[in-house]
């Protein structure tokens, strides 16, 4: 049976998706401003963060309104709760993207360090995770969510690797320390974006199954069927 307030739930959903798209875009553009040393693009990313903040407020507002007036239970309740959390994660993703854009502005006016190659790779994985997590939201596919969660260590490893390389680089060439530190922070930001994607994926599992899999071994035990993901590099978390 359709209810007159079903549209509100649909709006809520689409705003969340819209926010996800926006966060992905922000991250991608921030990375491009870094690789292309595009100052204008970086400025746009920084300015565009307001939009994400606004969306987060709006989603919270809608969620509270829905909880207040419609008395959600079961899957609706999970959607509302998950929506609030996911919007917070996405807002943080936006903040990280803004951080990357700020740092890429600083780096753009300085000589380039040849250590960029790993960052886009990391960023691509993080973006892919984010995208998949959002797809889970659309499809309510908890197996895909689990695959997102399993990819997080990959980004962690890359981050750690880069950290080591940048450390030795800084020891060798102390004049690059400030630039290398920026890169280190950017790497950390990307790693954080992947973490947020993992959070969102966990929330999506809660949304579709009603089980909280955070801080559990579940992610390791349940292998998605036909999972063809390559073995994770390094030794995981």
């Amino acid at each position, binding site marked *: *049976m*359709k*209810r*007159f*307030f079903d549209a*509100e739930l649909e*709006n809520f959903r689409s*705003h969340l998706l*819209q926010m996800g*798209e*926006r966060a992905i*875009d*922000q991250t991608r*553009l921030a990375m491009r401003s870094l690789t292309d040393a595009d100052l204008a*693009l970086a400025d*746009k*990313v920084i*300015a*565009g963060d*307001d*939009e994400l903040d*606004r*969306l987060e407020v*709006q989603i919270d*507002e*809608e969620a*509270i*309104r829905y909880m*207040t*007036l*419609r*008395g959600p239970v079961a899957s609706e309740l999970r959607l509302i709760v998950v929506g609030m959390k996911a919007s917070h994660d996405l807002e943080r993703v936006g903040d990280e993207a803004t951080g990357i854009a700020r740092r890429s502005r600083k780096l753009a006016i300085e000589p380039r360090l040849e250590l960029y190659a790993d960052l886009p790779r990391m960023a691509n994985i993080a973006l892919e995770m984010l995208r998949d997590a959002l797809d889970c939201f659309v499809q309510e596919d908890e197996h895909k969510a689990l695959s997102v969660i399993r990819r997080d260590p990959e980004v962690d490893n890359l981050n750690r690797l880069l950290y080591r390389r940048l450390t030795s680089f800084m020891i060798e060439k102390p004049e690059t320390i400030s630039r290398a530190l920026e890169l280190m922070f950017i790497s950390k930001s990307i790693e954080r974006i992947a973490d947020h994607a993992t959070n969102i994926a966990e929330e999506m599992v809660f949304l579709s199954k009603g089980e909280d899999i955070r801080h559990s071994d579940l992610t390791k035990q349940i292998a998605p069927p036909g999972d063809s993901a390559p073995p994770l590099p390094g030794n995981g978390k």
Partner: protein
Amino acid sequence: MSEPAAPSTAARPVTVAAAAPADPAARAVIEIDDVDFSYGPSRALHDISLAIHERKVTAFIGPSGCGKSTLLRCLNRMNDLIDGARVTGGEIRIDGVNIYDPRVDVIELRKRVGMVFQKSNPFPKSIYDNITYGLRIQGMKNKARLDEIVERSLRGAALWDEVKDRLHESALGMSGGQQQRLCIARAIAVEPEIILMDEPCSALDPIATAKVEELIHELKRDFTIVIVTHNMQQAARCSDRTAFFYLGKLVEYAETRTIFMNPANPQTEAYVSGRFG
């Protein structure tokens, strides 16, 4: 804020209308102004003042005996039927006219202010006769016109498809929820401006309740609705504004979401959160 150069990113987020503050342009159809009401020596309402907005659903909530039903019944002067019950002070104006003015024709008033009762009370007549009752007592005899109004009213009450094949069967053969929607259809058949509902769902199961609530939501396009309810979820779901009464006084009257999320009065807070007294 300027449009970011970012590609894609679907349309700009739309502002959800319902989240916006009350439409200040909404016209107050019913103005209740400092009304006192007594049943004989006992005072039931104290200095009630509130304005009910056009084409909005206004909910009256409060514990039993708080005066919410009394106030509702003042709005179409159903209280006139009770011996010794009378408005002892203040005015109730509908479209600017004080309905307790001696020149006011109560019959005319009740045609404009329809009412749906707590216990669904279809007359033990056919569905058709129930709907046409209000028109027939006004002397309408044109069969074609009556047929047309029956169909329109039943459609308006989302009941047409369920009963169109048994219009001439007894209304008492319908389910409880259908009976209540029939009473709503009967009320809208006389084309009132305002519909008063006195706990319309208290005897219905959740599905029937949901249907009536759905109907209320539809009806507010054409009618101003005032609903008394004990079910706070119902007030939250279907009303735009909510008035909380306690011991014959109006404690708080505001946007429904304000009442349920951030009530100004601690009594309201205690009542809506279910820890009263």
